[in-house]
């Protein structure tokens, strides 16, 4: 019987190809537009560290201006002072923890002809790699001893290793960064979290860094960080030492806490530290220290901008318009056919038969709309990629989103077909049999 319904639907579609194309086109456009914006939204808001969503935390301490909160909603600042981060590092409660900053370097290899090249770098603790599940192709990170001694060791990203060593195992080789020799201890495998969640200062959706060095290396070179340095306190800062001791916030700090007990213990440690500092005249604000999961962190920092949310809302309104349109067209088409349905009813078609027949037709329109809509979404994302630099990883349809698109199109079409199908199934056959 289903085959029969398909045949009837097909002949009905062939009878009004323009109307059918209009319906498929309307659904496809609605799907295309809403899937474009939804994909962006979905990728942007996806969890970059899904397997540790309840283990890895952004550490926030509120040592900000007692007169005025950092954020209007009283959230603690997104970064720490150097001194506070160093105090956190002294705790052995977290499974892993790392202070970090972003910093560029000028890199030269041993080749005499080579000109220096700019690389982006991250200065952090050796725990960074284990905490964020960073995969290695060769070698490993470095240990706490290397951290403490500010050893000149470096981990290269896959791309940087490609650039400087042609992709070979470069562990043990030496590269010169800002004219200092660094020994390569590890090379990463391909690693590209969608959001660079651990440091949102310099572009949330940028690539991770090219090179990784121990945190104390740039400190020993008296470097500042690339990114934001915010100061609230009038202080005379006339040396690097004074800068390190200042109330300026400029470093990020993350910790892995595997259990609720561990988390509570560390939060107590943070609060205890704040109370201690309070006695010394710091941390004058109400106690406001925080451990945020990656998702909470990304939400609070509004990584998915209001623009993206608005586009999703507007595009779903557009989809709704397309649906209303389809309802109208389908209703017109079905009602036009009422006399024929009357005949079928007289010949013994039950209401369910009529409903099934039209539902199959609606389904075909939905599937057609979904497939064409996928093409539109693909084009839309292509356009988005050409409009935004660095959106290659964001404006991409994955299998989930494709299935969502098809499912959305079919449910949209079924929704649009619901009323017309119901209407046509309720017609009085007798009314339509008398006149041609």
């Amino acid at each position, binding site marked *: 019987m289903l085959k029969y319904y398909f045949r009837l639907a097909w002949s009905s579609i062939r009878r009004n190809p323009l109307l059918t194309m209009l319906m498929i086109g309307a659904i496809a456009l609605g799907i295309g537009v809403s899937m474009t914006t939804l994909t962006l939204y979905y990728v942007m808001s996806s969890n970059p560290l899904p397997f540790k969503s309840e283990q890895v935390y952004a550490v926030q301490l509120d040592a900000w201006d007692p007169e005025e909160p950092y954020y209007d909603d009283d959230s603690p600042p997104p970064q720490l002072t150097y001194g506070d981060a160093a105090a956190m590092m002294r705790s052995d409660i977290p499974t892993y923890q790392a202070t970090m900053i972003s910093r560029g370097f000028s890199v030269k290899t041993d080749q005499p002809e080579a000109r220096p090249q700019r690389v982006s770098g991250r200065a952090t603790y050796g725990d960074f790699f284990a905490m964020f599940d960073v995969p290695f192709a060769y070698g490993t990170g470095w240990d706490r001893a290397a951290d403490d001694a500010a050893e000149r060791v470096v981990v290269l990203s896959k791309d940087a290793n490609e650039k400087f060593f042609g992709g070979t195992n470069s562990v043990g080789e030496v590269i010169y960064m800002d004219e200092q020799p660094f020994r390569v201890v590890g090379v990463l495998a391909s690693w590209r979290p969608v959001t660079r969640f651990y440091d949102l200062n310099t572009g949330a959706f940028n690539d991770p860094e090219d090179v990784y060095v121990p945190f104390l290396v740039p400190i020993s070179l008296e470097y500042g960080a690339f990114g934001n340095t915010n100061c609230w306190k009038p202080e005379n800062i006339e040396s690097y030492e004074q800068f390190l001791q200042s109330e300026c916030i400029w470093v990020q700090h993350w910790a892995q806490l595997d259990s609720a007990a561990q988390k509570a213990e560390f939060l107590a440690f943070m609060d205890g530290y704040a109370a201690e500092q309070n006695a010394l005249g710091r941390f004058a604000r109400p106690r406001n220290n925080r451990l945020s999961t990656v998702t909470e962190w990304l939400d609070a920092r509004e990584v998915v901008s209001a623009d993206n949310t608005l586009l999703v809302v507007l595009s779903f309104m557009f989809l709704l318009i397309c649906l209303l349109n389809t309802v109208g067209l389908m209703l017109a088409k079905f009602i036009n056919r009422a006399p024929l349905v009357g005949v079928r009813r007289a010949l013994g*078609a039950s209401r369910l038969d009529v409903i099934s027949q039209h539902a199959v037709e609606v389904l075909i329109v939905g599937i057609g709309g979904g497939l064409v809509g996928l093409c539109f979404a693909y084009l839309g994302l292509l356009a988005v990629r050409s409009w935004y630099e660095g959106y290659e990883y964001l404006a991409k349809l994955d299998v989930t989103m494709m299935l969502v698109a098809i499912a959305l199109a079919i449910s949209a079409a079924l929704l649009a077909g619901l009323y017309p199908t119901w209407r046509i199934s309720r017609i*009085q056959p007798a009314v339509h049999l008398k006149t041609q």
Partner: protein
Amino acid sequence: MLKMNDVSKIYTAGLIETHALRSLSLQVDDGEFVAVTGPSGSGKTTFLNIGGLLEAPSSGSYHLDSVDVSKLNDADRSRIRNEKIGFIFQGFNLIPDLNIADNVDVPLRYRRLPAAERKRRIDEALELVGLTSRKQHLPSQLSGGQQQRVAIARAIAGEPKLILADEPTGNLDSLMARQVMELLESINEAGTTIIMVTHDPELARRAGRNIHLLDGQVSDFQPLDPPPEEADKDIADVA
């Protein structure tokens, strides 16, 4: 075959009530060929709609083939229409998108018959109406008389016990009308009960029995009751 008792049908449109049938009682036996006549507005079509289970009566009882069908739900009524009743309309009501064979196929599909059985019945029905060679044609490629013969094939393909015909020759010229009439008569002779609504006294005369409706009731006055011998002779001529 068909037994109506005290059947009334009232249509309400806003505040106005129209009594299409008023306590109609009648009976049609198996194998009869009954013509229902009456002026416009006498309730002929309403009678046919209720008899064909297209509408439910407002009150009264209706037994079809000894089954009380006046209280059935929509799905059951659809099933009975499909299995026991064949319709023939004045306007043919063929489905323009479907070819002749597929048109005859429509009621068989709704009976969920297997493909081979459907094919056999389609072939038989089309052969009976003499349109086997036109199987693949669309209704629009056929003359009015041929279209009505397709409609008859469609009505009999389901092997119904009762055929309801509503002015089956109303849109046809006299030659074609006669062919259609002859067809109906042969179907009736094969045992199928036929109830035909018509306002044409010529046709009514050829039926076995006439029921005259007036104001929604059976009227005793039979204006054009033909002498029985005449009718017999006509039928004999046809045979």
